[in-house]
């Protein structure tokens, strides 16, 4: 018992043979929820900062307004709604594929989950790809902003905008890596109901990152 073989199964603290727990819940799931609670405060700080500095930049470019520099250079409002709407949609859909991945793992082999619905590999891959697509949109957004004259140093808007969305993007990137490692395990040995927990916690993380984006999209992009 003491030397159960390594299972190379991702984020594994507690181990295969289940220990007694008070609530019957998995330790890792409690930890991830506590972590998500903690992340609420992190993003609240970042979002507060962005909002506090809204409208306080001394120079442009600005998110929703055009701006003319003293030298006469004209800057368009910088936010690109069509692109961001697309990336928002992508991220929302990635949440859908994520729940499907979890359902597929949980119900592997059960009736109704034989075909595409039961293919955890497909859904994990889809989620990771959608996440990557979101990052692609963000990379595009960032570079075009830089070309239009907005860097992280330009003004308070640039500083707080890039930091907020950058932190979110970093979370997405970590999530993509996490999903890929799950996919890797799935390809190697297949994920089944007993692995549901490791997919579940990554899903919780993933959805949380999505939820944060829902807030950012409204507070940063939609409200002028």
């Amino acid at each position: 018992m003491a030397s159960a073989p390594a299972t190379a199964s991702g984020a594994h603290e507690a181990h295969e043979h289940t220990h007694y727990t008070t609530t019957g819940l998995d330790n890792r799931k409690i930890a991830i929820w506590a972590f998500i609670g903690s992340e609420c405060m992190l993003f609240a700080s970042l979002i507060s900062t962005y909002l506090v500095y809204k409208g306080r930049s001394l120079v442009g470019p600005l998110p929703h307004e055009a701006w003319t520099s003293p030298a006469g250079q004209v800057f368009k409002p910088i936010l690109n709604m069509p692109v961001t709407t697309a990336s928002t949609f992508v991220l929302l859909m990635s949440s859908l594929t994520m729940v499907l991945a979890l359902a597929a793992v949980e119900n592997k082999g059960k009736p109704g989950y034989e075909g595409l619905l039961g293919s955890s590999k497909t859904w994990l891959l889809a989620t990771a790809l959608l996440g990557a697509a979101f990052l692609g949109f963000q990379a595009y957004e960032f570079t075009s902003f830089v070309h239009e004259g907005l860097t992280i140093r330009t003004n308070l808007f640039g500083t707080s905008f890039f930091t907020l969305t950058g932190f979110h993007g970093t979370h997405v990137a970590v999530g993509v890596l996490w999903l890929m490692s799950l996919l890797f395990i799935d390809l190697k040995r297949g994920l089944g109901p007993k692995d549901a927990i490791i997919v579940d916690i990554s899903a919780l993380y993933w959805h949380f990152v999505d939820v944060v984006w829902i807030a950012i999209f409204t507070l940063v992009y939609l409200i002028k």
Partner: protein
Amino acid sequence: MATTTAAPASAPVHDASPGQTGLWSWVTTVDHKRIGVLYLYTALFYLLVGGLEAALIRTQLARPNLSVVSAETYNQLFTMHGTTMVFLVVMPLSAAFFNYLIPLQIGARDVAFPRLNAFSYWVYALGGLFITLPIFFGVAPNGGWFGYAPLSGPTYSGGFNMDFWVLGLQILGISSLAAAFNFITTIINLRAPGMTLMRMPMFTWMSFVVQFLVILAFPVITAALFFLQFDRFFGTNFYQVQAGGDPLLWQHLFWVFGHPEVYILILPAFGLVSEVLPTHSRKPLFGYNVMAYSGIMIGFLGFGVWAHHMFAVGMGPVADSIFSMATMLIGLPTGVKIFNWIATMYGGSLRFPTSMKFAIGLIAMFTIGGISGVMHSSPPSNMQQTDTYFVVAHFHYVLYGGAMMGIFSGIYHYFPKITGRLMNETLGSWQFWLNFIGLNLTFFPMHFSGMLGMPRRIYTYDAGQGWDLFNLMSTAGTYMLVVAGLIFAFNFFRSRKVGALAGNDPWGAPTLEWSIPSPPPDYNFAQIPEVTSRYPMWDLKSPERTAGLEHSHADAAAITEAHAVPIHEETERRTAAELGIPMPFNTIKPFMVALGIIVMFSGMIVLHAGKFPLAMAMMIGGGAFLVGSLYAWLTSPLE
């Protein structure tokens, strides 16, 4: 590195874990008790450092216009004194108790994530060095322990000093956060059958609240520090006034963290004395439920009062009033605690070993600090107090008279559990009285110097300002505290070798940790005890005391699943292998991950020094090392 060399010496007198000796075993340990001991030694070492810094501060201030140290050195001293005491002494001392006690108190074999636990410690230990070592090269942080912008920013602190502070606090934050997730999970999920929340020992309760304060407060300072770090390293504008940045943003973010932080410092001490007082009064804790709820209340209210540190910044009358009243409210749950402790003793059969003296000392001294806290909370009056020695008096009464007294109480109380031997009571008594008198002599006069106009954070002051006598008294008191500290150190190390043997339960205490041998075997409980009331050990040894309590059994399924047995004293010492208890493997990986983090952060400093290739090498190398070690960690079996 005094920590790692000192650490092995603390190996329990009769080691219960065969083969667990030598430096390597300490670097690779994942046993919560050994990690607790590591925390204890490291933090005591830093207490010595912080205390010496304080002694230098006080020496410089003994008389007007002295020049024992230069202005620049003084500024580094008080910054490092505050930072050290808060982040490297009191929090880790609390962590030492969290580690050592929580699993024992709730009847668990270890924490939920033992390796993560080792990781927390190593990040702390290495991060502590990161932030402390610069003082030997005269480049220690010098912006004050709350590093107000823009002084802490690139424009006004160009050198490395504040880099060490910003990065050092980030590192320490990682440690605290990781530990907090671990303990939250542990307390929720690893309680023995029958140990309901409302049966948890009060120390565990207070620790539970503290972990929530940590996970909610630390992200805020993490964000604030990232901003400062970006300003310093990447030229962003968060606190850059020339770009329109608002220095108050830093202040608000810092104190949203900073105020809960002070409860992070005090609640564990409250928990410790809540264990000591009933034990030595032979009476249960008075108003247990209210004690638990008031802890939650303090923690919750603690998030709504931060701006009382900013009454002088001109927030306007509405904000001033709201924060003022919210602050006053905190006096209520805290008062309940004070009164309930006294009521616990009232009608008891009191015995006064050193731990009890310190616990009573906490009640007496914290009250003074609490009252001056309430005095701060009235803005028009606070205008005369803020940034003067009156505030310094307040927070040392709550921190030294509260947190440190509580921790000393805990050390005397739990020393026998940790080492198997009792500390010497005569020396303890000396330490207590010197501490008690010294503390009042040091900090009481500060009320006067403050109200008589002495600002804080000044390295010198002019003669004839009416402060000379008070400062001299404070300095004299500090020397008493130094002597008390030395007595403590002597007692501590001596008792480890020659102290009287303690046995399982030297004090007649009520909670689970006293049912197992001292020091406990690595598996803690050979058999998980089933808990049927709040005071299991009294159930066993003096049932008349718990007769009035509600007793009930855990459900059968839980008992079977946990292989739990009725509460009993364990005296036999066998190895985990003999008992067939799976133990986590020792591993170096958490240490390696911590090391990777430190190397990465050091790379930032090198970057600031302009050595770009080296910096990149360190950051990429450290990062790769971190990721590799983490991968190895996650893919290797726990036990």
